[in-house]
């Protein structure tokens, strides 16, 4: 390894010059030093991976761990933020598969895979359509300009997860409100902590109730029944899994809806072609997933052995950040990555990660995006942004990229 002076190590995350493009440093690093050292907000030095091939290799390497309790696990919060949000963090400190390794991860994942098969997801589609229709009705009935984020981007994934987890109808409004507060910039840390506690308690109660009664026909109910037959998870881990499914499936899809709608509205020729031929929607969504790769500061890992890769040696117990966004803008793999090309065939993007942790809910996300975009184009052909796209409040400060508000006229 070459000697690097401390002050030469750039800070991560890096700033964007344009809200729709990754930080410019990614491109430079990819050419010069595709596995490079960065300083994380918590002060630790970690490795940043910016090249597509190396990102795939590392994420599929059994010598990396997803254990966030490891002291070298790259932290996205400063020590100060960490202390201030300690209570909020409680929501995500329960064990679930995204932070487990090896056989333990395999057992946790396998108990859930059947829930996310293409057949299961296809069976959910009519319900997703009803939910999308209802949220669009509400947006159309709202005073103009209406906020797409509030009415559609946040509401759709929240209601779909309620459906999936088996949250009773009368409690969905509360659930939606708490989930929204967790990702809102306009509420205080204190309010967010309260929402986090409420949501955590709510899922704890929901799991407990389903464990006591007859098995219910929803994801949590079936998970409990399967877990009784072959015990894999503790009660606490089932709650942790419910929390993980909420977090993983909520913010990601919500932000992709907002960014995707803006991308469609900013590319009227593409929009017209898709409106005329909905078969073009599926490749367009893959391209949007690549282009935005919203889970940009993750996945994070820790080396469990020395790994030689990209001309460097990552030592055992060193942290690694694999930027999916940097990888998905690798011009050796995606020509002119800055062009949003809905027909490029971008299926090999790593927006959902790669390796054994690749997003289990990715096909549900695809269905949600398809139904939202198709329905908006069909039902609200006159949809337009109420402010210029470059003036929207982009989430420069969030772990998952997106937009806080998207005022639209319907």
């Amino acid at each position, binding site marked *: 390894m070459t000697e690097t002076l401390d002050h030469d190590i750039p800070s991560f995350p890096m700033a964007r010059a344009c809200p729709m493009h990754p930080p410019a440093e990614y491109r430079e690093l990819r050419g010069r030093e595709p596995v490079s050292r960065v300083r994380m907000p918590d002060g630790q030095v970690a490795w940043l991976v910016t090249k597509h091939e190396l990102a795939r290799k590392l994420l*599929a390497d059994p010598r990396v761990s997803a254990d966030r309790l490891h002291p070298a696990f790259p932290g996205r919060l400063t020590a100060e933020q960490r202390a201030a949000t300690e209570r909020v963090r409680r929501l995500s400190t329960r064990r679930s598969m995204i932070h487990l390794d090896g056989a333990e991860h395999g057992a946790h994942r*396998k108990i859930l*895979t059947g*829930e*996310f098969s293409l057949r299961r997801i296809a069976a959910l589609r009519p319900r997703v359509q009803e939910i999308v229709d209802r949220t669009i009705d509400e947006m159309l009935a709202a005073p103009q300009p209406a906020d797409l984020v509030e009415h559609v981007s946040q509401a759709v994934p929240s209601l779909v997860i309620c459906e999936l987890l088996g949250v009773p109808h009368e409690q969905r409004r509360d659930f939606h409100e708490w989930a929204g507060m967790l990702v809102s910039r306009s509420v205080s840390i204190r309010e967010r902590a309260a929402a986090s506690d409420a949501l955590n308690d709510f899922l704890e109660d929901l799991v407990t109730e389903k464990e006591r009664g007859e098995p219910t026909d929803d994801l949590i109910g079936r998970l409990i029944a399967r877990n009784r037959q072959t015990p894999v998870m503790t009660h606490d881990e089932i709650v942790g899994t419910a929390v993980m499914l909420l977090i993983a499936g909520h913010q990601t899809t919500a932000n992709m809806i907002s960014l995707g709608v803006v991308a469609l509205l900013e590319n009227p020729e593409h929009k017209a072609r898709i409106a005329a031929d909905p078969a073009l929607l599926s490749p367009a969504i893959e391209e949007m997933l690549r282009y935005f790769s919203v889970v940009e500061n993750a996945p994070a890992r820790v080396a469990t052995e020395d790994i030689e890769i990209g001309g460097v040696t990552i030592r055992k117990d060193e942290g690694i950040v694999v930027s999916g966004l940097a990888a998905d803008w690798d011009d050796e793999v995606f020509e002119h990555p800055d062009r949003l090309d809905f027909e490029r065939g971008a*299926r090999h993007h790593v927006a*959902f990660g790669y*390796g054994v942790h690749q*997003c289990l809910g990715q096909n549900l996300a695809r269905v949600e995006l398809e139904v939202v975009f198709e329905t908006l184009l069909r039902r609200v052909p006159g949809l337009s942004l109420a402010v210029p796209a470059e003036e929207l409040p982009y989430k420069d400060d969030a772990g998952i990229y997106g937009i806080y508000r998207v005022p639209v006229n319907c």
Partner: protein
Amino acid sequence: MHITADRERCVGAAQCVLAAPAVFDQDEEGLVAPLTVDPAGADGPAVRQAVHLCPSSALRIDEE
């Protein structure tokens, strides 16, 4: 072309079914269940894409 699909390695991401629906399916548990292990020549590119996309390296093809 001969396909080997390892259910033990499979993580149920369904990338193979999306890439080559005529060749791959999922069972009740959401794990890979090939419809054929010796696909016709025409399916070659789709099968190769399925192998490339598989996140857990559960698929292997032996070209003849």
